[in-house]
């Protein structure tokens, strides 16, 4: 509007120059885009408000502090039907995070192994890795989840015929039951020792690097670190008189009681997401390694480095720069795919939110919470990976 009114008295020669003015054109199209965007958002908001009022439903986020009234099977924090809807959502969020974090770690490990394996000179290993990638990459993740879930339920025995495993563990179609550690008095000292061990290991590694830079002498810092991280807590544990007992699973009337249980829902979701995403990560890793110029490998070999060291010290650090950006996308995909948990009854954020949505009828609010949470998780992951990428980036010297 404003543009038209100011242009009205201008002569046709000026009009034409205005049309061909790149600056004016760029502003003009941006203004139109913004207008369209505002109009769409306004239309959606207006329609929603009107429909909400007409449908006589309650709205707002007050429901989050009401009593939930339903139970959740798997929870990392204390939860009962007396807790609030807000806490129920928190339980769901923690379950989502649990499967996302464990899944990302496992998928990365499998992905790197398979990706490097595909480049192996060993024909069998290379082909096996290729088959793995092609199989998992070409099946929808939901089917992979169903495959693991129905596989777990179909193959494993009923609770009364549980498979007894070493260390008082039991396996049946209700999950893997294992002894639950109960930490006695003074156990916090062990945690402190572990922390000290980790810090000490970091110092040793730094010192070893500096010494190698200075003198060229190598120091077995990996073994020293392991000894520090494991040995220090172990010694502390023995010194304060082993304050650790276990709650063992025992057969009850229906299920095993006592101990801790990893349910088949979590297990199948975790395995499915890990194996599925690992196939993509393997391809990214392979692309990253192939992206490092062959001259680098040849030059390292000419310097007399052994093949394992060439991979670890020359190829992988350079490949990481190619690998990290697409790897971030895969981490985000895994986190988002965890919402497929709903198909097998794992109490993730979407499953719990769905129940709340139905009990309270507050669809828009719950959907908004879902979107904000997944958006936040994705942004946080991206920020972390961008920081990591910047750290790994090529430093010009």
């Amino acid at each position, binding site marked *: 509007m404003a543009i038209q009114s100011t242009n009205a008295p201008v002569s046709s020669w000026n009009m034409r120059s205005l049309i061909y003015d790149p600056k004016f054109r760029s502003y003009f199209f941006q203004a139109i885009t913004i207008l369209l965007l505002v109009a769409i958002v306004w239309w*959606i908001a207006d*329609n*929603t408000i009107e*429909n909400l009022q007409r449908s006589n439903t309650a709205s707002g986020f007050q429901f989050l502090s009401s009593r939930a009234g339903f139970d959740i*099977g798997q929870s990392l924090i204390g939860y009962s039907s007396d807790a609030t809807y807000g806490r129920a959502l928190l339980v769901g969020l923690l379950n989502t995070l649990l499967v996302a974090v464990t899944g990302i770690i496992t998928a990365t490990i499998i992905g790197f192994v398979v990706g490097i394996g595909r480049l192996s000179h060993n024909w069998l290993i290379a082909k096996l890795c290729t088959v793995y990638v092609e199989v998992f990459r070409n099946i929808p993740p939901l089917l992979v989840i169903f495959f693991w879930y129905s596989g777990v339920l179909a193959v494993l025995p009923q609770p009364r015929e549980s498979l007894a495993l070493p260390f008082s563990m039991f396996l049946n179609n*209700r999950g893997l039951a294992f002894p639950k550690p109960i930490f006695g008095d003074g156990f916090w000292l062990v945690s402190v020792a572990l922390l000290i061990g980790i810090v000490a290991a970091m110092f040793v590694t730094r010192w070893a690097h500096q010494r190698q830079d200075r003198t060229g002498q190598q120091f077995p810092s990996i073994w020293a670190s392991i000894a520090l991280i494991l040995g220090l807590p172990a010694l502390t544990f023995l010194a304060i008189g082993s304050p650790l007992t276990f709650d063992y699973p025992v057969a009850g009337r229906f299920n095993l009681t006592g101990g801790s249980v990893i349910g088949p829902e979590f297990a199948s979701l975790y395995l499915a997401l890990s194996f599925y995403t690992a196939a993509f990560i393997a391809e990214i890793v392979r692309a990253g390694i192939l992206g490092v110029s062959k001259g680098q490998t040849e030059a390292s070999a000419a310097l007399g480095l052994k093949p394992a060291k060439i991979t670890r010290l020359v190829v992988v650090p350079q490949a990481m720069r190619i690998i990290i950006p697409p790897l971030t996308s895969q981490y985000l995909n895994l986190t988002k795919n965890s919402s497929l948990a709903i198909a097998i009854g794992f109490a993730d954020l979407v499953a719990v939110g769905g129940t709340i949505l139905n009990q309270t009828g507050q*669809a*828009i*609010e719950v959907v908004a919470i879902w979107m904000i949470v997944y958006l936040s998780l994705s942004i946080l992951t991206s920020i972390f990976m961008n920081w990591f990428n910047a750290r790994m980036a090529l430093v010009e010297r």
Partner: protein
Amino acid sequence: MKKTLLSAIIGTAAIGLGATAASAATLDDVKAKGFVQCGVNTGLAGFAAPDSAGNWTGFDVDYCRAIAAAIFADPTKVKFTPTTAKERFPALQSGEVDVLARNTTWTLNRDTALGLDFRPINYYDGQGFMVRKSLNVASALELSGAAVCVQAGTTTELNLADYFKANNLQYNPVVFEKLEEVNAAYDAGRCDVYTTDASGLYSLRLTLKNPDEHMILPEIISKEPLGPAVRQGDDQWFDVVSWTHFALIQAEEFGITQANVDEIKASTTNPDVKRFLGAEADSKLGTDLGLSNDWAYNIIKALGNYGEVFDRNIGEGSPLKIQRGLNALWTKGGIQYAPPVR
């Protein structure tokens, strides 16, 4: 209001994009488009399930057809929308369906905060438990420590939590969104107990691999009055849906069946029956409802009375063989009762 705006902007989903907004005059909309859009279960044998030819059949389905018969004198003018427990209320609220006949329990919360209206109760139900006979359980009070399969977002899920808490029993809930997933998990032995409305248990037992290996425990732990639901604030449509049910009940009370309705309409001298079937001159009962005067006749002609609908789908004439019990007429020891049609 501010919060609504915020969530509206963020949540473009669900209701926002529904261009077919909930209209105040559903009856006019239905007449204009020529069919009733009915929300039913995704598949619960006896209540709503597609048969081998793909036609929807069942107790709830017959209610949809009865409403269509009352409006159009044609029980086929109905389209079905299968909904999960989670989808059913948004589907009704957003106007995607005109009426929800999906074995849905009438509760205060749903009547108020969810913006729905319930009136006729077409099935008085209660929540029960099903277990494997091999577990040797005789009562629900022996279920402490059991894994219980239940559908997400139902009153069942809430009653379950309350019942186990009240009786100080432990349990491990195994919750699925879809009925078929709950069935599959129970059948695979993922849980010891299956809980839902007793009518649902009878229906689901038939779909298990070996129905005879399972039994339903005697306890009924809740009141589950099931009935059709409509959107709040549309009294005319609410009346049409309510009186469709009352006509089915009234017909059974009069002894009018699908087979004898024509004969009775032609020959009766009972003014009550004449009025009911629209055979009375100058009666305005049907037009006051927004329908034709022979609306009740059309329902009975198409589907029979309540007793026939019950027997055919879930009663003695069906594989479920559910007893009438509370759902018998008030004159026969039950509590099904209709206000006078006059």
